[in-house]
């Protein structure tokens, strides 16, 4: 009995370790390739010379990082505020058109993104938001909204109504109920939608590619892809991988820290959906 079971366990862990290495290998390789010696950027030993080269590429890494941080911060803050208020309304209030609005919000998921981006390019121009990071953030909030509003509605519904009612009897307004009581109760949901919004906004490529036209407003992903595609002659892969590391590292770290929130939100989203 022990022999076959030991064999089964060994082969299970061997297979799993092999698969895990296969999945982690590209990330490890990119990190290694970004610091390894690279004659073309004048880096003889291991070090951060490729990152220095990246820092001086185009408008300068700081410009792109600032753009990315601004768009990400606006998107995360906007998504959290709009979805929290919306989720509260959907879960706790009855008003004309509530179900219709909720359906319309979810319908965003069903429309292919290019179908929206082409008219949004024109529309943002009319609104004076063409080539604007604020316009970009507003569009990214819209794309986050179906998932975020859904999660927040579920989070609010999971809180017993007796909590609100007790507070109301004590004279709280509905806004005080939200800020003083319910926000604490729905914090896991807030972490989930904040994390999703961060990962999406920080890494999004197609939306800024279409909506942002001047290089000084490019977020980092567009800038790095431009570096890859517009280089004349040979591509400096080491600098490219340095860009990949700058793009990937915050996502990987944040995911590892907030993993529980991510998986929890995911479960509630896909089980109910």
């Amino acid at each position: 009995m022990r022999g076959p079971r030991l064999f089964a366990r060994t082969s299970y862990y061997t297979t799993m370790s092999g698969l895990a290495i296969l999945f982690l290998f590209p990330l490890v390789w990119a990190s290694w390739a970004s610091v390894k010696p690279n004659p073309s950027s004048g880096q003889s030993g291991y070090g951060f010379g490729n990152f220095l080269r990246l820092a001086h590429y185009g408008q300068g890494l700081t410009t792109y990082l600032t753009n990315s941080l601004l768009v990400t911060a606006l998107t995360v803050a906007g998504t959290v505020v709009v979805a929290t208020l919306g989720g509260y309304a959907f879960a706790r209030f009855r008003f004309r058109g509530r179900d219709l609005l909720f359906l319309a919000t979810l319908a965003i998921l069903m429309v292919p993104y290019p179908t929206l981006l082409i008219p949004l390019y024109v529309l943002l121009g009319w609104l004076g938001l063409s080539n604007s990071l604020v316009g970009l953030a507003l569009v990214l909030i819209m794309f986050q909204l179906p998932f975020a509003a859904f999660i927040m509605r579920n989070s609010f519904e999971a809180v017993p109504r007796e909590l609100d009612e007790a507070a109301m009897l004590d004279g709280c307004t509905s806004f005080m109920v939200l800020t003083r009581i319910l926000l604490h109760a729905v914090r896991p949901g807030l972490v989930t939608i904040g994390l999703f919004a961060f990962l999406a906004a920080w890494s999004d490529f197609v939306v800024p590619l279409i909506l942002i036209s001047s290089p000084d407003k490019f977020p980092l992903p567009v800038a790095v892809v431009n570096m890859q595609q517009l280089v004349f002659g040979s591509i400096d892969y080491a600098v490219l991988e340095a860009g990949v590391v700058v793009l990937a590292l915050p996502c990987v770290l944040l995911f590892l820290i907030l993993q529980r929130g991510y998986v929890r939100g995911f479960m509630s989203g896909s089980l109910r959906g």
Partner: protein
Amino acid sequence: MPPTSQANARPGIPALPASAARSARTPRRWRPSRQTAGLLYAAPTAVIVAVFFLVPLALVAWMSLHEWPLIGEPTLNAPANYTGIADNPLFGDAVLFTLKYTILVTVVLFGAAFGLALLVQRPRFGVGVFRTAFFLPGAVGFATASLLFYGLLSRDVGPLNPILTALGILDHPVSFVGGTANLALGSSIGLVVWRFAGFNMLILLTGLQAIPDDLYEAATVDGAGRWPQFRHITLPLMRPTIALVLILMITGSLLAFDQFYILTNGGPDNSTTSIVMVIVREAFTRFDLGSAAAVSVVVLAALIVLNTVQLRVLRRGDRPEDR
């Protein structure tokens, strides 16, 4: 809309006449304003959905009826943008390629994701680490992942050529992303599986964990082996989750863009040009927004039809009498 207010329908609060409920000490003025309050909380959502979703949806249909240059006044030209689609040789090839890609990627990705989900299904020592390892590529943005693979698969610095040559699988270095149409397609599929297998594994895992353990226990008592259990318990009960995953995969693949724009640049010889790439090219290389809008409308219509059919087929399978 039912006439009773929500507060009255709730348990615990007796439905007293308003005058009785309103005690002298605490004037309860919130109840009449519930409707307004709800509207106010929902207002930001409504504005975002209306301005950035519903208006563009109408606008894209309107644009598709016009000659709409990137700069300059639009003029009505319906239905030239739609008839023009048929004459666009790139579009036909892109449709064929996108369909071929969708079928291949869905089969490979679903197999990989389901396999991984089965492997990490049971709680045992170290399984959390494996789940994290498989999912971690999903935290990285797709464009970032495409750039990563551009280096990883390159002939100049990528480790794949040396490894495969050392193993004797290749006798000379190959350009994976631009060598031949099949290699470029294979590279894209590899990238997508690496980036999305863990994500889909997680969805499938939620479905697997929702199956009650006693079903398997009862089957084991009855002497059913692993395969019959999988065939008669796991698969039927996983139907809704599998349906969700397949719809996500198929929709995502039909709208593929990043991997071809960044990794293969549509090449070699436009062999990996997807439908969305055609839309972007029409709009921002040929500056013809009207034509891009028409293609977008066609894609939207096709996806609505496809998803309706998929849902109907999968839902029909949900009813026991059809099995």
